[in-house]
């Protein structure tokens, strides 16, 4: 009895084993190359976005493959919201799953601090430095070291509906923040639109961007040079008061509070809103008759600053860099790919899709031709402010998001919200 029992068991287990192995084919490719060879598969983590889209990245990878026949690039595309989690996951593995990652500038400090990515200072040439605006470079520096190579120069612009403005008796976009406000009031009073302004104020990273941008429009920052929060005074406070005022006076669409960037764009291109402050991706969409109802009226402009601010514009940066994981075993190949993907030659092929990081390309005739708004872009870009570079940015950002959101939901006052932010950020452990 006993033997037959165990025999039975054995056959059952064998069957189960067959089932399991049958199910799990094809098994994942295990990298057989711990030492760097000419042939390798690079794993790159990237995000779905317009501009440098999945198609374009694949195209770049094919070109790279043609030059480096041994190297295959295997992309993973994820939502922005998951990018950070996936990078941490990759860092937790003894050998990284991704060799190259897309680094949003807000992670510079965290990833540098925790050693997730390697410093690139020694690899960057003076020539390269000379052709990239300092505002862009600076975004990826933490502790005097450079942690990612700029890849994509994203930043916010003003997008507006000229028909609405003309109907309200204005010739063009506002030159100052005060004028912007006056235009919104006029648009509302004359009932040209119900809500003149739409933005992406749902409780996500985008809200921090909009807050930093508004503070930039008031000529200041939320944090001082030492990384200490100062939003309870000066530009930080004025910015939140301004945003709140737009909500209170119903100049901003209440839907903004649950809308993200593409949702805000939809409100602009549906014709429901006159102004949208948003990232560069809007331009292509608002001019696309397949998507937009306002193709002829859609315009790009400067983000106006307050009267007492000298800068001609104020915006927030959303730069993305490419970085090499510190636990990758293919760092040399990874760097070669980064050099290729960010090179002026490659970016020149895709001017239609994305604003280049290289100054020489930004000012090239080709770019002016493709993007008649390049001038506005360049001015906004030169006046971009960064979000704080602190190692515990995710927690800091979560606090700012919560407090700004609860202020815009009319639960707390701007004074209370900013004071809370300073206090909670100071109280964070380390």
């Amino acid at each position, binding site marked *: *009895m*006993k033997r037959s*029992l165990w025999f039975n*068991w054995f056959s059952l287990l064998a069957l*189960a084993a067959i089932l399991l192995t049958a199910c799990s084919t094809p098994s994942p490719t295990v990298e057989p190359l711990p030492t760097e060879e000419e042939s390798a598969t690079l794993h790159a983590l990237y995000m779905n976005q317009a501009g440098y889209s999945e198609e374009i990245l694949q195209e770049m990878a094919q070109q790279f493959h043609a030059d480096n026949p041994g190297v295959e690039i295997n992309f993973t595309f994820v939502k922005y*919201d998951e990018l*950070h*989690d996936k990078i*941490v996951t*990759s*860092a*937790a*593995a*003894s*050998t*990284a799953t991704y060799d190259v990652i897309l680094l949003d500038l807000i992670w510079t400090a965290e990833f540098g601090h*925790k*050693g*997730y990515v390697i410093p690139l200072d020694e690899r960057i040439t003076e020539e390269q430095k000379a052709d990239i605006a300092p505002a862009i470079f600076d975004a990826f520096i933490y502790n005097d070291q450079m942690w990612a190579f700029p890849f994509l120069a994203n930043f916010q612009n003003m997008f507006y509906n000229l028909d609405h403005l003309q109907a309200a008796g204005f010739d063009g976009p506002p030159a100052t923040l005060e004028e912007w406000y006056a235009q919104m009031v006029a648009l509302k009073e004359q009932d040209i639109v*119900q809500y003149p302004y739409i933005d992406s104020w*749902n*409780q*996500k990273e985008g809200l921090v961007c909009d807050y930093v941008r508004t503070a930039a429009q008031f000529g200041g920052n939320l944090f001082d040079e030492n990384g200490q929060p100062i939003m309870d005074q000066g530009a930080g406070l004025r910015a939140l008061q301004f945003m709140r005022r737009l909500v209170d006076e119903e100049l901003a*669409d*209440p*839907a903004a*509070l*649950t*809308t993200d960037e593409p949702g805000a764009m*939809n*409100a602009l291109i*549906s014709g*429901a809103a006159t102004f949208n402050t948003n990232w560069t991706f809007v331009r292509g969409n608002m001019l696309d008759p397949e998507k937009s109802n306002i193709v002829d009226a859609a315009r790009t402009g400067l983000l106006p600053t307050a009267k007492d601010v000298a800068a001609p514009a104020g915006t927030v940066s959303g730069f993305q860099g490419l970085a090499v*994981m*510190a*636990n990758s075993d293919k760092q040399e190949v990874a760097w070669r790919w980064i050099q290729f993907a960010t090179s002026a030659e490659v970016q020149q092929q895709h001017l239609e899709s994305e604003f280049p990081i290289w100054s020489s390309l930004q000012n090239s005739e080709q770019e002016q031709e493709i993007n008649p708004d390049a001038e506005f872009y360049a001015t906004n870009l030169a006046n971009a402010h960064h979000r704080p570079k602190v190692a*515990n940015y*995710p*927690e800091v950002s*979560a606090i700012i*998001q919560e407090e700004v*959101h609860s202020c815009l*939901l*009319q*639960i707390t006052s701007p004074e209370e919200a900013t004071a809370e932010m300073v206090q909670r950020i100071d109280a964070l452990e380390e």
Partner: protein
Amino acid sequence: MKKRDAKPNATRLSIHASEEKFALALVTPAFLITFLIVLIPLLYALYLSFNRAEVLVVGGQGGLVTEFRGLKNYFYFLSSPDFWYSVRTTLYFTVASLIIELVLGIMVALLLNEEFWGRGVVRTLLILPWAVPTVVNARMWGLIFEPHAYGALNGLLQTLHLLGPEQTINYLAPIPLFQNAPLLGELTSWLGITRGLTWIIVGDTWKTLPVVALLLLAGLQAIPLDLYRAAKVDGANAWQRFWLITLPLLRPIILIVLVYRTMELFRVFDIIYILMAYTIPVLGVTTFQQSFVFGNFGKGSAIAFLIGLLVLLLANGYIHLINLEERE
């Protein structure tokens, strides 16, 4: 179980000791699958919850670095107003969903118990929402709750003239209900009763209501019709029949639905995370954020255990209820 044990020929099967071993051998794999994969991680999580644990890459090697800090993680949350706000928000989601599901569930079950043309078809259609994957359900309601006039629900309410042509509702805004009413507003914001969460309850209920209704319907159909006839003869009206016959006889099944749904509702994560990311801090979402966004696996484990503790408390309460029921 009890019934079968009373049968003499059933017990005869378990005389031999070898049979016992055989039975154990049959149970072992299922048991191991459950416990290797569940129990060991649980113990490990307990260990993590007493540590600071974060991901670092040192010398080209990635990994988790831990540092013992005793009960600090637990104290951190127990003394944090945010944690208690999360508890209240989660409780609101759980309790409000339960009440709606049960009340509407009983009503739908009573309706489906009536004779009408096409009843079979309606019953079949009713199960469909339950089959929709949670993620699809969340994204579908995200489309319906689109805050502009081109959103489905806003469009519907405007078409029905329940909203003016310029009026729209921003369904998912996490604004406390009755925000401007003096005392009530403070209560709702303390409890985390927000408009956004309330509409999410609507979306979640759409998916779960059918199962609850169909379970209750099965219970209704088991009630002998004679009871109703007898009550009618005694002069009880429909309302009395419901309170005196239907409800008491449905009680066991209501209790089971209550237990099963509480456990599911209390650990809600999917629909809230998908629709609102971290805006509505129910416990599941807070845990996820602590661990996978902030990278604090120690703190994340501590909250996870606190959730487990709360679930145990709830379960304990229900077991109490069921025991009372059986004693009656």
